[in-house]
């Protein structure tokens, strides 16, 4: 139980919070926000893996020897942008469901015969 894992544990806590929101909440927008929380916590996991003790940001400068790992940063930049794309599509679907059923609560849609 070393303190070196504190970051990982907070990340797992956040991940599980997002997961819980995702599976228990009926409101579709709330579900998407839960998904977002989950996503950001995965980003944190990657970024904290890339950190090097005593390192600095990976921008080449004179007189700096240790840099943090740039690879997770690149991956997460891509992931953030893909995340916003999925969020946009999800919200568009939600708006469409609101137009078709008049509600965005999962159980009410089910009562209307939307989901079997």
């Amino acid at each position, binding site marked *: 139980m070393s303190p070196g894992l504190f970051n990982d544990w907070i990340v797992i806590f956040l991940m599980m919070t997002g997961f819980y929101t995702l599976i228990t909440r009926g409101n579709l927008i709330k579900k998407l926000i839960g998904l977002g929380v989950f996503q950001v916590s995965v980003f944190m996991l990657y970024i904290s893996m890339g950190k090097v003790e005593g390192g600095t940001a*990976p921008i*080449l400068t004179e007189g700096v020897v240790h840099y943090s790992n740039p690879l997770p940063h690149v991956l997460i930049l891509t992931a953030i942008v893909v995340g916003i794309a999925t969020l946009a599509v999800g919200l*568009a679907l939600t708006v469409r469901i609101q137009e078709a059923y008049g509600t965005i609560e999962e159980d009410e849609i089910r009562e209307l015969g939307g989901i079997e």
Partner: protein
Amino acid sequence: MLLLAGTALAIVLLRDLFAVVMLSAIFSLLSASLFVLLDAVDVAFTEAAVGAGISTVLMLGALALTSTREKASRNFQLVPFLVVLLTGGVLVYATLDMPRFGDPQAPIHQHVAPRYLNASMREVGVENVVSAVLASYRGYDTYGETMVIFTAAVSVLLLLGGGRKRSRTELEPPEEAP
């Protein structure tokens, strides 16, 4: 980090969706400042611009078209909670094998990253290694990413544009009102 945890809990518990959207913007901003602390400046400003900016605007737009109030349901559900607890427990068990935070000997720092750090100045000529990898070594990934954005934009346009036309012709008036 504890602030982040508190914000996340508030997101789960609050029912007013407007407040929840604002909290998720705060969550993004807090995580952006965390990324600065972890030396990921590029990620931090992308997260601040995209996570706290664009996604909040999108959410508010969606809220304006739907409702801002979440229906009251039971606040505590046992089975999902147990599932979440179990998953979390397994993940915590898995972290026990992870390298310690900031350890320079961790496997992730041994393989490709040193090559990028040493050679990118000679091969690409940009001081910022993240940009060098993003635009040059992994240029195809970035190209694929723009394709994803394009697809997303097209599907949003199809979903919303087609929806308005259909709701004018097929649906009854009460369901049209946002």
